[in-house]
């Protein structure tokens, strides 16, 4: 096989993206835990971890540019590298949202305890599955899983609408919980955004595999 150096560099790049993905997966799991228990310590850890992910994103970005300059990739190689440059932005945004949610967890902890909205756990589960499937489909270039992710986005959007309506009625019933409910509203917005980023990543994976650009 020719181009051993190039192939090694591509593998390295692939592994770095997986590494970045698993760190974000960890952050997401921690965020879910912290959200269940309103765990301030864990939330702080997540915020700190965000810097690590930013650094990793920069490294991968630089590697991509170097490979393009030195190896002039084309066809599937070019698709993969350009897609990775887009994917890491989405992963980084997901990590940002974990940190954003963590800020609200810390905020919630300062306020009187309020009941978490119904269905929040279901939304979290759906979103979590999307993110894990996305990372899996990247690792194995699994087109079917990527398509499932794209389809699941509607489900998460639906949960967002339902929970938002719930929160509105809660606020109408009890004015004391308005501050907490607004925090939860922001949190579900971020969860919904994370699902969107997962969808984007799934679309780029589709592009890597098929060469077809899915416009959403």
């Amino acid at each position: 096989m020719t181009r051993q150096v190039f192939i090694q560099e591509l593998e390295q790049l692939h592994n770095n993206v997986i590494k970045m993905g698993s760190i974000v997966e960890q952050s997401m799991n921690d965020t879910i835990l912290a959200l269940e228990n309103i765990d301030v310590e864990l939330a702080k850890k997540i915020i700190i971890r965000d810097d690590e992910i930013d650094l990793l994103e920069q490294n991968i970005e630089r590697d991509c540019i170097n490979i393009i300059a030195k190896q002039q990739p084309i066809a599937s190689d070019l698709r993969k590298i350009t897609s990775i440059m887009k994917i890491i932005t989405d992963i980084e945004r997901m990590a940002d949202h974990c940190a954003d949610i963590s800020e609200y967890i810390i905020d919630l902890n300062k306020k009187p305890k309020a009941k978490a909205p119904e269905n929040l756990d279901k939304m979290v589960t759906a979103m979590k599955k999307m993110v894990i499937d996305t990372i899996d489909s990247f690792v194995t270039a699994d087109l079917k899983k990527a398509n499932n992710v794209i389809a699941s986005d509607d489900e998460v959007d639906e949960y967002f609408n339902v929970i938002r309506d719930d929160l509105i009625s809660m606020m109408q019933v009890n004015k004391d919980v308005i501050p907490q409910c607004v925090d939860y509203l922001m949190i579900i917005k971020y969860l919904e955004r994370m699902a969107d980023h997962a969808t984007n990543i799934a679309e780029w994976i589709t592009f890597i595999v098929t060469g077809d650009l899915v416009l959403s």
Partner: protein
Amino acid sequence: MNDTVSKFSVNDLDLFYGSFQALKKINMEIKENEITAFIGPSGCGKSTFLKTLNRMNDLVENVQIGGNIYLDGVDIYSDIDVIKLRSRVGMVFQQPNPFPMSIYDNVAYGPRIHGIKKKNQLDEIVEKSLRQAAIWDEVKDKLKKSALAVSGGQQQRVCIARTLAVEPEVILMDEPTSALDPISTLKIEDLAVELKKDYTIIIVTHNMQQASRISDKTAFFLLGEMIEYGDTHQIFNNPVDKKTEDYITGRFG
């Protein structure tokens, strides 16, 4: 794919050197005023195929050809005189190979053999051809000097001018830049893109970047077969065949 006219139509082309089959059932439509690039590893038949298009393979002994090639609908192996065909389908070779005579005589060679004798008419053709080949300004003061005295890149452009002087419709280029430095290569590439307004250009190249830079269509050949043929951006972004993909991404052998 039908918005421009087909210059060449190739139907089930087979080519044998003795008992060795060098081309296997090639089918292809080559469009007018486009650059079509042939890529593939050495010995894949791309140069052989190129040479069938102006019947340069006739010079090789023991060549047998099956199938048909049509130029503007006329079968070039049965219904057209080979001399006439070659003045319609010109060729530029791998090594810059001007004749050992002056630049002027090189360019005037074609018109002269086709019977043009008048000095002012020849002058006109020589200047026009050299201008088209984007080398007039560099050689206008040394037209009487030997063509071998200029640089390799300039020699190749003189050779292109020599081909243009016959006023062909199609220009076949057989790895025209493989012996040139990068800057000369880019000049020839620019020239090819410029020329496609008036000519149909078919180029064989080992330089994949070159094919992707200048061609409209790309055909990939392997072991005498045409594996894939399509728009260049499709071939280089998303080839259909795994063999094409492996070749253009360098994962070969």
